[in-house]
């Protein structure tokens, strides 16, 4: 049955987009999680929601308007953090509610939710067009290439902004660039996962990977594997069961997280029991 599903061109588009979106979100997400900016994904996706509503209201390709609004919001949020006394979590809350408010007002003006807007909220496999796919591939390729190019600088500012600054890294510029990249990753994921669940795709695979990964690169690779597996299985299951893909993908990644926590606690207990036995036999 799975092979049969793969014959459909919309499924091929969904699966290809899913792989690149999952990889991009995990890589960007690892930096966001370690920088204590997990909720940035939420703020950016809600800002993008306002942008989507602008696009649907003005009949402009909505992913373009969402892209512009989301990038502007990301720069705004960084500026708010750097130059005012607003705490970072409050800046996120402001951005999140502003995007949502713009979206709701425009939806009210246009007479209610359309099918297209609903698909952006919850994600959709069927509605990924060729135009969407090209945009997703370009955005993800750009984000991944820039992150790979600036990988060590990004690790450095994640570890310590002050020490990175002393080493001659333009920390402020890199912060703006990185949040801009995060907003591109969010836009690329909108079609597949939906506004409401993007931050889970950014956060959950990385939390799981951090339990096992020894080293930044290895953690990123484990996170990519978890995210890609969740997205691929999620897309197929959501097609078979006729459910929104975003929900299934996130539930799968949560299932992997819970499984990992259980395995880790069992192996930890076994190791500590073995250590106790060794200590007792040595004492004897």
């Amino acid at each position: 049955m799975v092979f049969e599903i793969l014959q459909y061109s919309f499924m091929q588009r969904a699966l290809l987009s899913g792989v690149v979106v999952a990889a991009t979100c995990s890589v960007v997400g690892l930096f966001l999680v370690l920088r204590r900016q997990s909720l940035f994904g939420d703020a950016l996706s809600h800002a993008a929601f306002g942008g989507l509503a602008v696009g649907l209201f003005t009949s402009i390709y909505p992913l373009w308007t969402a892209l512009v609004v989301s990038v502007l919001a990301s720069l705004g949020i960084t500026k708010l953090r750097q130059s005012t006394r607003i705490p970072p979590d409050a800046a996120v809350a402001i951005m999140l509610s502003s995007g949502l408010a713009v979206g709701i007002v425009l939806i009210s003006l246009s007479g209610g939710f359309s099918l297209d807007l609903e698909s952006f909220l919850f994600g959709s496999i069927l509605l990924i067009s060729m135009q969407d796919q090209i945009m997703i591939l370009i955005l993800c390729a750009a984000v991944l290439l820039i992150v790979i190019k600036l990988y060590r600088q990004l690790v450095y500012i994640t570890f310590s902004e002050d020490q990175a600054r002393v080493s001659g890294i333009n920390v402020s510029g890199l912060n703006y660039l990185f949040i801009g990249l995060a907003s591109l990753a969010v836009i690329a994921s909108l079609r597949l996962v939906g506004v409401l669940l993007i931050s889970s795709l950014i956060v959950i695979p990385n939390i799981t990977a951090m339990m096992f990964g020894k080293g930044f690169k290895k953690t990123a690779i484990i996170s990519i594997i978890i995210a890609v597996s969740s997205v691929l299985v999620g897309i197929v299951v959501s097609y078979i069961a006729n459910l929104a893909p975003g929900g299934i993908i996130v539930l799968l990644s949560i299932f992997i997280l819970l499984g990992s926590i259980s395995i880790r606690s069992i192996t930890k207990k076994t190791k500590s029991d073995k250590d106790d036995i060794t200590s007792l036999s040595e004492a004897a």
Partner: protein
Amino acid sequence: MAVVSVTDLSYTYQFNTNSSGSSVLKDISFSINEGDLLGVIGPNGAGKTTLFSCMLGLLKNYKGEIKIFDQDIRKNSFVLQNIGYIPQQKSIDQGFPATVQEIVSLGLIGRKSVSKDKLADALQMVDLSGQNQRRIGELSGGQQQRVLIAKALVHEPKLLILDEPTTSVDVETQNKFYSLIKNLNQKNNISIIWASHDLDAVNKIASKVMCLNRNMFFHGETSKFFANDELIRMYSESSMQLHMHSHLNANKNPDSIQRTDNDAPMYTSHPANMK
């Protein structure tokens, strides 16, 4: 050639546009030469970290002049690449996934390739050979601090700036750390500026002492400072005054809480007796 030459350095923190700000450094002038190990002492809030932040180019709106290897850091910030910096000890998040090797290699940013030999040498210098694949978050506070030293050493700096590097580590780790910086200074000929509250260690290791209390009231040979009871009495009194001043400011202006510290050492006995 002086390694560091600071002339009439003053710095004021501006908390908001309406206030005149809080002056932390006033007219500080000093210099150190190649091979010097300068111990910077002074209570919390005395301006040690602010002084280092100015010297490292982290704070730019200072008055006066700072020269590193005869280069004004405002005109030639590249000279800062000769400095290895180890900040105040903060525990690193246990979940941070980077390995020791990945952290140390950050010290080579800007170089085209990362030499594994250099990484190994730096880790050997801090007695962490064989630990390169461990996650930094799994290490003890003292080991984490040594990783940061290895990161600072890997690009072969000519000047090390250490900002209270042994805060919150145990006595044994502190002693190992003191031997390490003594070796780096004497065997590797690295000039070192080291802020510390441990007067005994400063007395034993540093070749020069600078005593800060927003103003600088002593800069010279270590033996001269510790042999002079009057200077030590002034140091104790100024510590007490700054502590009380900090408390008063904290009550007047909540913003200043960020710049003061309730744990400022109160020397109820003569510091020389604390050895």
